[in-house]
């Protein structure tokens, strides 16, 4: 497959990720998902091509995934994030049997066998147990989401957060602050609450080692530690947890092209254009 390049575009609820690969990852871009998915998909793709020093028509196949995957006009195929995550992890950490993905607005557990998803659980109905829970709580506490992990490591006396609901938990942390609880202790309590919620969901899959953590939540050291305490063993992290789905999408694109070549089939390719389609040009 020399001279072939594959792109994976993962439009998540919070972050948009693009990778360009040949045998290895050549370039990756991570940017926030705004209200205009299409424009954003075009922009991050353009940036990734620039970093890989490639023209768009040199890309053999483009796969889009994530919750905004239908808003990638230049994609050749859309594939669910479950399949892309499974493929990405099978490549990055082949020993993994269970993936816990903590995204901005959902969380999922995926069970893998021979590099394919065989079962999954997902919560996208309730903000508790997703990145959104921490985002709302961080806002109430006046700290940035990025600081949460590090701050929680300084906890000495973890505060119990009794609310499950994100709205009520946000009120509860403000009350705890006014009662004089230390910030680090409250944040540790929040991590414990979200870890309990996620673990409770993923446990339904019968967790098997090794376990990988992916998504934005895997970049939060406090949450990782809280989940590891629940699991009872250390989890594995990909080098960049946010890119797992995009890497899987690019690799699935490669698989599709390979299979088509073997069968002598011709694949349908979308026009390699990065301009937004408009009615009036």
């Amino acid at each position, binding site marked *: 497959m020399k001279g072939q390049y594959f792109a994976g575009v993962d439009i998540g609820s919070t972050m948009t990720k693009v990778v360009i690969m040949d045998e290895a990852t050549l370039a990756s871009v991570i940017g926030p998902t705004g209200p205009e998915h299409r424009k954003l998909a075009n922009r991050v793709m353009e940036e990734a091509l620039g970093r890989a020093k490639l023209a768009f028509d040199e890309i053999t196949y483009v796969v889009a995934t994530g919750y905004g995957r239908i808003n990638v006009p230049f994609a050749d195929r859309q594939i669910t994030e479950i399949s892309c995550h499974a493929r990405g992890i099978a490549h990055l950490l082949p020993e993994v049997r269970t993936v816990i993905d903590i995204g901005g607005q959902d969380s999922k557990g995926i069970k893998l066998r021979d590099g394919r998803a065989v079962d999954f659980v997902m919560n996208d109905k*309730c903000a508790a147990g997703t990145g959104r829970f921490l985002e709302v709580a961080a806002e109430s506490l006046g700290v940035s989401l990025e600081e949460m992990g590090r701050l929680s490591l300084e906890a000495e006396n973890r505060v119990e957060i009794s609310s499950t609901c994100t709205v009520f938990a946000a009120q509860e942390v403000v009350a705890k602050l006014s009662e004089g609880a230390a910030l680090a202790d409250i944040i540790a309590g929040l991590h414990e609450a979200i870890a309990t919620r996620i673990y409770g969901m993923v446990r339904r899959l019968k967790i098997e080692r090794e376990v990988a953590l992916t998504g934005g939540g895997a970049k939060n050291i406090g949450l990782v530690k809280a989940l590891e305490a629940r699991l009872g063993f250390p989890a594995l992290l990909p080098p960049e947890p946010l890119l797992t789905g995009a890497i899987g999408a690019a690799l699935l694109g490669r698989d599709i092209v390979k299979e088509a070549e073997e069968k002598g089939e011709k694949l349908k390719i979308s026009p390699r254009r990065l301009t937004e389609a408009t009615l009036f040009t």
Partner: protein
Amino acid sequence: MIYVAGIDIGSAFSKSVIMAENKIIAHRVKPSGGNYKLTAEQVMEEALAEAKLTLKDIACTVATGYGAANVSFAQRTASDISCLARGVHYLYPDARTAIDIGGQFTRVLKLDGRGRAISFLLSEKCAAGSGRFLQVIARVLQIDLEDIGELSLRSKKRVDFSTGCAVFAESEAVSRIGEGAAKEDILAGLHRTLAAKIQAMVSRLGIEPGCAVVGGGAKDIGLVRSIEAGLDGRLLVPDEPQIVAALGAALLAGEKVSKGD
């Protein structure tokens, strides 16, 4: 003349009711704020002033609600469920089901013919079934909570929400505004979402004819109509839906006085 009082310190609002000879002679509603003890005193004093009475004239005060323990001048406390049941029965002797839409929780209760609760359900774990949901939405739409009801009735186009979660509904409302949806259509959609949660609670408990809706949420006419759409028959809505638990507390105070304990 024997005077009794009921005080209900809720998570969002505090209410007081003063009664004489089984009739309401004064009542007050004010935001609970951060100091429940002070709010309890103020909401009582204001009602006393209206009735031209002092605390000494009150034979018995019963406190209820989330912050009942902060009412230092009350002789008794009572559960919000029994106060609600008593208050609803006083207003609507034939009512057998009551829905209380409060700031934090929604409660659904079944009552007997004597104003006692037989069974009840609480929406305690999730903001999606309570007035809190509307508070969150009012903030993002930049409208007053009081205006939500009337505004939503002007809805012409159906906007549906994919989520029941208050946090996700907030973001969904923001996206819908971005897409150009009208505020009234968004509100009507959110009312349907909230009403569905409340209807689910009602059907779990089993509705009986004669259903009253009380609490701050009952002041939202759009929400009341939305709940009605999924239930048989009209809902009974008091003129002052917020004071029903305080009224029930005052009635319990009256019973204590007449029993002589």
